[in-house]
């Protein structure tokens, strides 16, 4: 029983490795699916904007309100803009974006490819002279890898705006002073950290969703499982990657 489970896990890991390697082989090989990549960027990025806007804004407001009492104890509420900008740009923006995208985009990709797999649409694509891996997987993974960093910057902007509203209401800080302090606190390494995390998270969400969907089986039950696992696995990996990237950035800072 245990031996079989280990064997199954090893086979799964080998399949994931082969899937990722195939992505890197296919991504540089023509023909390039620009039209499909743009369509997927629209599907993934544009259609996630309302949800991202709402969560980004709430994150900014809530984080500010939660941080204020601690700083007020030391009479340091004037540091709020700097604290908020560092927290949002270094950690919250890419993480919140990735978690929202894991739920919305990851499950969507897993379910879409899963249902295409079980209804033989992927086979139909293959026998009609189209490389389905390139058309379906490469385009989606590129779209998430490009889309999540853009969305992360957007989340950061909306989050900072939400935080400003709170700071403006309570501390009467003006828009200009607030953003002067926000940008003064941010270094190149903070922005680099945001981009690096967002790119890695975007790639992870895309590749996990595609892998789960592309390898789904057992009919509609398999589609549900593909969508579910796409979310669970990508969220889990996002947190693991967050820990690793933070260590790398800290090492670079030292």
């Amino acid at each position, binding site marked *: 029983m245990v031996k079989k489970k280990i064997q199954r896990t090893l086979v799964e890991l080998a399949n994931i490795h082969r899937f990722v390697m195939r992505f890197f082989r296919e991504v540089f090989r023509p023909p390039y699916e620009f039209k499909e990549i743009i369509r997927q960027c629209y599907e993934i990025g544009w259609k996630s904007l309302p949800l991202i806007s709402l969560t980004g804004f709430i994150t900014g407001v809530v984080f500010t309100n939660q941080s204020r009492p601690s700083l007020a104890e030391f009479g340091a509420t004037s540091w709020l803009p700097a604290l908020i900008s560092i927290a949002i740009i270094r950690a919250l923006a890419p993480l919140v974006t990735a978690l929202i995208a894991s739920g919305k985009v990851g499950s969507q990709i897993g379910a879409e490819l899963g249902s295409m797999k079980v209804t033989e649409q992927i086979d139909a694509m*293959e026998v*009609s*002279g189209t490389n389905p891996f390139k058309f379906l997987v490469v385009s989606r993974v590129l779209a998430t890898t490009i889309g999540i960093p853009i969305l992360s910057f957007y989340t950061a902007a909306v989050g900072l705006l939400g935080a400003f509203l709170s700071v403006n209401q309570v501390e009467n800080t003006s828009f200009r002073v607030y953003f002067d302090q926000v940008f003064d606190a941010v270094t190149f390494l903070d922005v680099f950290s945001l981009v690096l995390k967002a790119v890695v998270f975007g790639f992870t969400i895309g590749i996990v969703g595609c892998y789960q969907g592309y390898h789904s089986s057992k009919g509609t039950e398999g589609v549900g499982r593909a969508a579910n696992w796409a979310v669970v696995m990508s969220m889990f990996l996002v947190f693991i990657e967050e820990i690793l990237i933070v260590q790398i950035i800290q090492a670079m800072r030292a």
Partner: protein
Amino acid sequence: MLKTGGHINYDKRVITVRNVSKSFGDLHVLHGVDLDLFDGENLVVLGRSGTGKSVLIKLISGLLKPDAGTIEVLGEHVDELDEKALQELRLKIGFSFQNSALYDSMTVRENLEFPLVRNKRHLSRKEINYEVEDVLDGVGLLHTLNQMPSELSGGQRKRIGIARTLILRPEIMLYDEPTAGLDPITCIEINGLINEVQEKYKTSSIIITHDLACAKSVGDRIVMLLDGRFEREGSFDQIFDTDDGRVKPFHDYNFIN
């Protein structure tokens, strides 16, 4: 209605399957099967569900790889081709799937355009429109051009699935259970369409089915897959002229009960 099979060239084999075996884990599906498809012929493969009929045509189209044996399609060894060569060969093979496999996020027009746009990039918009409308008119469904697959009936989906494969003008057609799940009238229409395709596009076809009415009306020759091997071959009457307990129930269920 029995077929005459007037245009078959028995000197030219378009598909040659030799000693092919395929297993999935412990499940042995095909045991060293041999099969020939002649130029212009409609060959029906009969057999019970789960006997490996669909696996056979997936092996022929290169969707699956055989564990042993060789498969030659239009002079090319399918199992030895690299990805690019296989893709080129597939343009000469039309595959009609059991559940039609229409892309459900695309309209009927987009479904038909998809293989054309991707494989014949030199075509103008006007030429693409002409091809799409021509082939859709050929299956009698021009009015569904802008509909989504979810808005179509099972028979319409089947016809459009066939039209999508015909748009690349294949030399070989592989039909996987073309009449499964359809009412008798629609089955007759689909059978007629398969014969029309053979006549109009001069295709050679393998039709996978367990529907004997379909086998009788479209098959120039019939082979029967029993326990992973082709054990009977011939005309419809020859196939069922037996007391074999694995064969007789097929006929009796369809034509007596």
